[in-house]
């Protein structure tokens, strides 16, 4: 059945192809010529202050492909509203034509065709160039650069240098303040060490030592820019100690701490702040709710859920900004401040099209220096993919299918579980699968690929619990992340049902038979939050599997049936 939506997708694809073929063999170059650095930077300045926001870079130093999700369901009040729009609905909402550079940057359909046309995005040398250009245009004393966190993790070089490479890069970029989530997976000592080395203030009002409930980090910092006092409150990911290994940060507690945010806002106002910004790693839906419950926040710079929105969302008087991930975008928000109020604002999500932007040579040099010791290892071609390999989506990603298949085969398991991480690059059909690419999807500090037995009932419980973390109608109960990917098993999910009743029809795909509640199955998985988990690192498992097959082809995954959306 071709729905109207599918038909529209097809039209968009045809349009994209027409554009490419119309320009002949120079299609790509011509497309880039149309898209200049000036176009990307074009912005009519407003007011006295510019806020620049980058977030969820996940240690991606060099340009990459990153496909946005084609399924990103909102539940409860978030249903059908940005950021829970994809593809045609997203383009309709933001008035973006199919086949354009913006469509490539922000939507998922036609990804392969558009990626070939518009090239890779991101690269910290390009990000650096854009930031320098804004500072030059506006005056550096009017620009505040803020980083929403998930910066120090996500690549092989970040893992090998335990985050040091990213601290060097962000210091060179001149970040004023940051907050955090995956940073905590380097453990308490290392985080403190790097926070010290970081020139950016490491702000986290919601991290406390669990003995005395004292703040571990500075909760907020006030900056003077363009003659205005800007208070920035840091909010680390509230559920770090649940979603990531608590044993690595045993003395720290997190949580949302809404009342404490209100206290921070009130204190900042009492100290004479003109503008109050929450530099948040809560996730978009959590922040959208928080904006209606905490008074006096002018701007929330959101993160964690990797949403990229080419316009702001407002909740009451609060402006919410969503700046995407992986260095694909830099957000620019100009504020006109009068009488301690935001009298006006202007916003643009600057897309970092790597082919259109001249790399900043000094940042390019730093990136080369960082990557050089690992260059041979990173460039190793383990195999090639015939299929588009991507990560994002509520239920499946082809890169995750590959990881799951690798675990089933290499660990001789009946079922594989791979976490619904939202970071990791995309590979186009025909691309080499380098070790760099494998590491970009797997580089974490708790990589052991375990093998164990689990009953059908236990598996159902796990899926129910994870589903409740994503589809609980109250965003304060959502933990973020996408649904755990299950290899070897299909299931149906009603996202609108209450916990315990969302998951049904669990089927072992190999036999086509229902999963038995009391039977034990062999399960392989990785990213266990438990201390002492045994097994080879997941990148070795994936590498061995890809090396064995050389050519990877992933068939479309129809194992998860979704209702209630």
């Amino acid at each position, binding site marked *: 059945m071709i729905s109207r939506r599918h038909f529209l997708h097809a039209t968009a694809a045809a349009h994209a192809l027409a554009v490419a073929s119309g320009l002949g063999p120079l299609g790509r170059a011509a497309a880039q010529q149309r898209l200049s650095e000036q176009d990307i930077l074009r912005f009519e300045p407003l007011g006295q202050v510019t806020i620049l926001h980058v977030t969820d870079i996940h240690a991606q130093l060099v340009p990459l492909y990153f496909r946005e999700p084609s399924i990103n369901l909102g539940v409860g009040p978030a249903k059908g509203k940005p950021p829970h729009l994809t593809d045609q609905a997203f383009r309709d909402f933001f008035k973006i034509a199919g086949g354009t550079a913006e469509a490539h940057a922000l939507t998922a359909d036609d990804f392969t065709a558009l990626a070939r046309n518009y090239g890779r995005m991101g690269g910290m040398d390009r990000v650096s160039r854009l930031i320098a250009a804004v500072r030059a245009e506006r005056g550096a004393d009017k620009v505040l650069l803020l980083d929403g966190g998930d910066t120090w993790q996500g690549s092989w070089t970040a893992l090998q240098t335990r985050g040091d490479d990213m601290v060097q890069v962000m210091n060179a970029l001149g970040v004023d303040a940051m907050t955090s989530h995956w940073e905590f997976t380097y453990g308490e000592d290392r985080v403190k060490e790097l926070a010290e080395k970081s020139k950016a203030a490491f702000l986290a009002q919601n991290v406390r030592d669990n003995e005395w409930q004292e703040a571990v980090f500075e909760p907020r910092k006030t900056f003077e820019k363009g003659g205005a006092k800007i208070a920035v409150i840091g909010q680390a990911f509230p559920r770090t100690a*649940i979603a990531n290994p608590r044993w690595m940060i045993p003395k720290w507690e997190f949580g949302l701490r809404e009342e404490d945010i209100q206290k921070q806002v009130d204190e900042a106002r009492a100290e004479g702040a003109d503008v109050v910004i929450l530099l948040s790693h809560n996730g978009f839906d959590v922040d959208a709710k928080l904006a209606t419950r905490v008074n006096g926040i002018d701007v929330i710079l959101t993160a964690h859920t990797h949403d990229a929105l080419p316009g702001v969302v407002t909740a009451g008087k609060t402006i919410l900004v969503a700046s995407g991930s992986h260095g694909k975008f830099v957000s620019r928000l100009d504020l006109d401040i009068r009488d301690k109020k935001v009298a006006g604002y202007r916003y643009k999500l600057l897309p970092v099209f790597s082919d259109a932007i001249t790399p900043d040579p000094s940042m390019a040099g730093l990136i080369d220096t960082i990557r050089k010791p690992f260059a041979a290892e990173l460039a190793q071609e383990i195999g090639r993919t015939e299929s588009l390999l991507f990560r994002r989506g509520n239920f499946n990603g082809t890169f995750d299918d590959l990881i799951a298949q690798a675990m089933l085969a290499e660990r001789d398991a009946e079922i594989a579980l791979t976490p*619904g*991480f939202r970071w990791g690059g995309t590979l186009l059909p025909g691309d080499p699968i380098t070790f760099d690419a494998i590491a970009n999807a797997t580089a974490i500090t708790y990589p052991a690929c375990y093998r164990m037995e689990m009953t059908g009932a236990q598996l159902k419980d796990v899926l129910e619990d994870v589903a*409740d973390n994503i589809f609980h109608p109250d965003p304060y109960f959502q933990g*973020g992340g996408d649904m755990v990917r299950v290899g070897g098993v299909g299931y149906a999910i009603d996202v609108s049902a209450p916990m315990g009743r969302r998951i049904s029809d669990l089927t072992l795909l190999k036999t086509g038979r229902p999963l038995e509640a009391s039977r*034990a199955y062999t399960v392989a998985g990785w990213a*266990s939050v438990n201390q002492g*988990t045994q097994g080879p690192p997941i990148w070795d498992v994936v590498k061995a599997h890809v090396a064995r097959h050389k050519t990877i082809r992933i068939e479309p995954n129809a194992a998860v049936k979704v209702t209630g959306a």
Partner: protein
Amino acid sequence: MAGPVVYRTRRNVLHMAALAAAASVIAPSLSKADSKAVEAEIKKLYDGKAMAEGRIKLDVPQIAENGLVVPITVDVESPMTEQNFVKAVHVYADGNPLPGVLTFRFSPLSGRASASTRMRLAQTQNIVAVAEMSDGSLFTTKAEVKVTIGGCGG
């Protein structure tokens, strides 16, 4: 809500991809309390006396980071004078093997009827607090605490 399976400390046992300890920690078949068991406990002390809502501020996390040590603070509005003070606060959990969690006892010399500690919660459940005032009146409030196995935020 919590499915048909036996009682266990969920957080400790299962992370979606952290199942290494699962089989060994699942208790054979511990029974658990429910809201009736909590009511029965309160009845033992107060024999079905009417309870009013309010006056108690029960501060527990909506989502526990660690089910083994969930922070709890109770704070009851009271002048705490000889004439008018909070005598005791009882806390119950309707999803633990035993419903009784703790009792804080106060006197006018306490100054404030406020106390904090940590409790162990087996699973997602309601926490019920009952405050007994010096005039014999009773107040109650409840809050749900979610004890989760994770969900890999990324």
